[in-house]
């Protein structure tokens, strides 16, 4: 039967595509046929590059000529734990340079774990006339001078967010560089800045930007200034306070409470450095509307925390220190029925003994009471297979599960068995699980479960687990949707890696540090798979100076279409592919 294509004029197809935003779908569209590829690339407005070295800036701008929004990620996730040495890479300058030429109408840049210099910020400020959104998450390399350039030149700036970035704080007056005529700010996040900003400039900025919805202050903003800022922006939806302590004065409390009451749209609260509990009642008026609450800096006791969260019946996201304790989590299980995401951080991660009454029971309670819970990050000191089993059965809708039992290789504290069965239950029952972090005493068996059941798993983090290569083999051969795998201090060596070499081309990246992968195996991988960059990070000096069987310190493998990167520091070696062997 002859196939007649359903033909459309291009504009119609473009219009259909304009309703398709998800990157995966855009990718699928572009792989359908030549004409769709062409149409799609001309109307693609948003590009996400998950690994800045997977493709070159030149390739991206050539393929997508009309992009308005770029998002790029740089360093591997384990850089957050100081496992990636200084100067590793992820420089955004080449990208900014290419985009400055190709995308004069660029509006949005979102970067994560990249090195951004003041030069980059200055180039952004002068190249993009419609520039509106700058979000820098876990970035570094720039100073407040760069921010001043953005403030001074970007007339249409709507969002400026510095999330957990390392900024050299030279001068708090950068904020004054926003001209008096500038009023389009919608979102400002300066929570990571160390020093004071010019408060009067901030107050004026906040009150003249009537569309301001998000304001995340830094710790240096004193509590007694908060009421004024709130009065200047009663339309705020998201607020991050500065330091939340001051000399206790009833009139300050009353003033603050009144200011909070005026913010009828407030849905998200964060900040809360150095909380003085007697000032907490100021936020009670807004609690019932809150959907997001970040108390991860609030070093207050369980009773105060409970008083606060028990009023937050609309809460969807809660980040809190383990001061909440099992008792607090039980209250949450009873009061916050809409909870989707819970993160419990350790107040004393390096202490040898538990300083709070937080155990696995807290998580079990929440998993029972909060039926919509799907994302968990939980630090605790003890766990049992039984608890994990209960959690898994309670919450089959779990999509992200990250458990960190503080003591490495801690077994089930009741049975002294490995926690294989517990995590096995998680992957078996939570069929939509996309992200998993393991901890505790784990054998190869847990990886067998993960390989068997973790069919939708996209990201897996492993530390101090497993016994033999079989563990790694189960994961690489079983997890069909695996994109990112990061492993540290596990006895995985060459066999599993080499046996599953082809799998690596289907993933974004693999990180292995303090494992047992030999230099020889790395060379072999680099040789056989030219579409991968196999990078050995070794601060002991050139790997060639040691026998091939020596395990490398760290290994970072990622797929790429842009060939070797040219900005590697002296302690990174790329395993070459032998072009002579290639059959063209």
């Amino acid at each position, binding site marked *: 039967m002859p196939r007649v294509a359903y033909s459309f004029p291009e504009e*119609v197809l473009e219009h259909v595509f304009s309703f398709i935003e998800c990157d995966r779908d855009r990718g699928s569209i572009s792989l359908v*046929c030549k004409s769709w590829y062409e149409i799609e*690339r001309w109307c693609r407005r948003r590009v996400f590059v998950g690994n800045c070295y997977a493709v070159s800036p030149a390739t*991206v701008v050539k393929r997508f000529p009309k992009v308005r929004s770029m998002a790029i990620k740089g360093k591997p996730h384990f850089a957050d734990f100081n496992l990636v040495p200084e100067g590793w890479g992820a420089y955004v300058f080449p990208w900014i340079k290419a985009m400055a030429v190709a995308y004069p109408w660029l509006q949005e840049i979102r970067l994560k774990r990249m090195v951004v210099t003041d030069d980059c910020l200055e180039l952004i400020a002068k190249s993009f006339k419609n520039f509106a959104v700058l979000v820098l998450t876990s970035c570094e390399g720039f100073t407040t001078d760069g921010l001043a350039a953005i403030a001074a030149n970007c007339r249409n700036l709507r969002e400026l967010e510095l999330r957990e970035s390392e900024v050299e704080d030279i001068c708090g007056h950068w904020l004054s560089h926003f001209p008096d005529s500038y009023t389009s700010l919608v979102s400002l996040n300066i929570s990571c800045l160390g020093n004071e900003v010019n408060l009067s400039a901030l107050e004026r900025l906040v009150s003249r930007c009537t569309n301001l919805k998000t304001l995340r202050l830094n710790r240096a903003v004193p509590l007694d200034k908060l009421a004024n800022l709130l009065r200047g922006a009663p339309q705020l939806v998201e607020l991050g306070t500065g330091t939340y302590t001051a000399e206790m004065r009833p009139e300050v409390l009353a003033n603050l409470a009144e200011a909070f009451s005026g913010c009828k749209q407030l849905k998200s609260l964060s900040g809360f450095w150095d909380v003085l509990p007697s000032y907490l009642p100021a936020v009670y008026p807004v609690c019932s509307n809150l959907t997001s609450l970040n108390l991860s800096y609030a070093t207050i006791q369980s009773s105060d925390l409970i008083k606060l969260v028990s009023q937050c019946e609309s809460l969807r996201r809660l980040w809190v220190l383990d001061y909440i304790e099992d008792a607090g989590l039980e209250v949450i299980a009873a009061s916050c029925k809409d909870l989707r995401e819970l993160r419990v951080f350790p107040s004393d991660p390096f202490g040898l003994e538990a300083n709070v009454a937080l155990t696995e029971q807290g998580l079990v309670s929440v998993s029972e009471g909060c039926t919509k819970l799907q994302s968990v990050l939980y630090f605790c000191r003890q766990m049992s297979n039984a608890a994990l089993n209960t959690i898994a059965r309670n919450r089959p809708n779990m999509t992200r599960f990250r458990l960190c039992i503080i003591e490495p290789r801690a077994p089930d504290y009741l049975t002294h068995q490995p926690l294989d069965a517990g995590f096995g239950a998680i992957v078996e029952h939570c069929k939509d699980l996309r992200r998993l972090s393991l901890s505790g005493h784990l054998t190869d068996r847990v990886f067998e479960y993960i390989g068997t059941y973790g069919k939708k798993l996209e990201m897996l983090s492993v530390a101090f687990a497993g016994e033999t290569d079989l563990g790694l083999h189960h994961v690489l051969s079983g997890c069909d949707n695996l994109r990112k795998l990061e492993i540290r201090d596990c006895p995985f060596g060459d066999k599993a890696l080499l046996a599953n070499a082809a799998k690596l081309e289907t993933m974004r990246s693999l990180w292995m540090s303090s494992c047992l992968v030999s230099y020889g195996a790395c060379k072999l991988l680099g040789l056989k798979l030219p579409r991968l960059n196999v990078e050995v990070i070794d601060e002991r000096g050139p790997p060639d100076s040691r026998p091939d069987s020596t395990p490398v310190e760290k290994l970072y493998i990622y797929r790429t279409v842009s060939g070797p990167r040219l900005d590697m520091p002296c302690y990174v070696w790329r395993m070459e592919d032998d072009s002579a062997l290639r059959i063209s």
Partner: protein
Amino acid sequence: MSEIDMAIIKPEMMKPYIWLETSDGSIQQVEQEIAMYCPLICQEIIQKGMGSSKNCAICLPQRVSPAMLSLILDYCRFHQVPGRSNKERKSYDEKFIRIDTKRLCELTSAADSLQLKPLVDLTSRALARIIEGKSPEEIREIFHLPDDLTEVSGACENSEEKLEPLKNATDDPRIRLLNRLYAKKRRELKERERLKNVEAEEEHADERSVDDLLSFINGNGEDPKGIKTSKNKKKNRRKKEQHQKSTSLKEASEVNKKEINGQNIRHQSAEVDRIAETSNSHAEDLFAQKEFDDGDIDDGIDPALKEKIDREVADFARRLNSDWPERMQEFLSSGQEKKTMLFTPNGNSFLRRNACMCYPSVLNDFTYPLYACKLNFHPF
């Protein structure tokens, strides 16, 4: 009576009509009020004065067939009534687009040519929903599109996409050879693991009586337990054979290793492969997971290159077969030496580096508790 008189007496009989001609040449009369909902038609009537009679019927664009016109007019007829609520309209729209994809495409095209934006949006969104979540093959199938993308260029910079490279990887003859070997070794690995478990199971003695066994052998397999146990027994026996085979394989490889100095490596690894091949043919049914194609593939590579690849593959096979426990021991003992060096005054980084090298020791590792996420706390 004149026409005007008729209009006064029975105004509802005088609804103005206009004439439209569709792509197939047929002409029809349509209520003007409804047709005017389409901007293109509206334009033709008002600006060009067309459509008032059969002779000056408005020629609709080529993409508007009679069937599509009918659908579009239904849409217009519903929506041009002013009194309807948003809920009603939405409900109508949802039902309206429940048509097969082919007609949906035609409808989108037709609506676009008539510049009827609300309908274009409605149908486009519906098409977008059809496309979402589908693979390129599925989309091609639905829209009857040719599979003419031969280059992979640029299709892979978005690391979220399922890439062609995987296909290319298995097309590369070197990779295919390697993959076949890996697949065999994987099966071996898995087999050994299984056997470890099986041996543990076999601890439980078969408690059936001699009579039971005899009756089973004689074909009176009524006792399900009996059958099951005996089946397991059969499986176990097969596994045992394979275990013996694979141990002999292991022994053979050890023997090979000892003889290897200066010998023809390729020849011996071929031996190893042949043994592996026979033992693994039984393993096929025990392992449900997908394997790479193990059949003979005409790789079409030149013999000299093939030999070079074979040598590398053999080399690689040796490495895979090398004794794991020995290497582990070696590694651990080198770790022991380094442990004693820990307390030199070389600073934190040396300490930490070597702590990582001494794999079992984590006491000096300051980043483990942070492993699950970044903690931005001021120390207190």
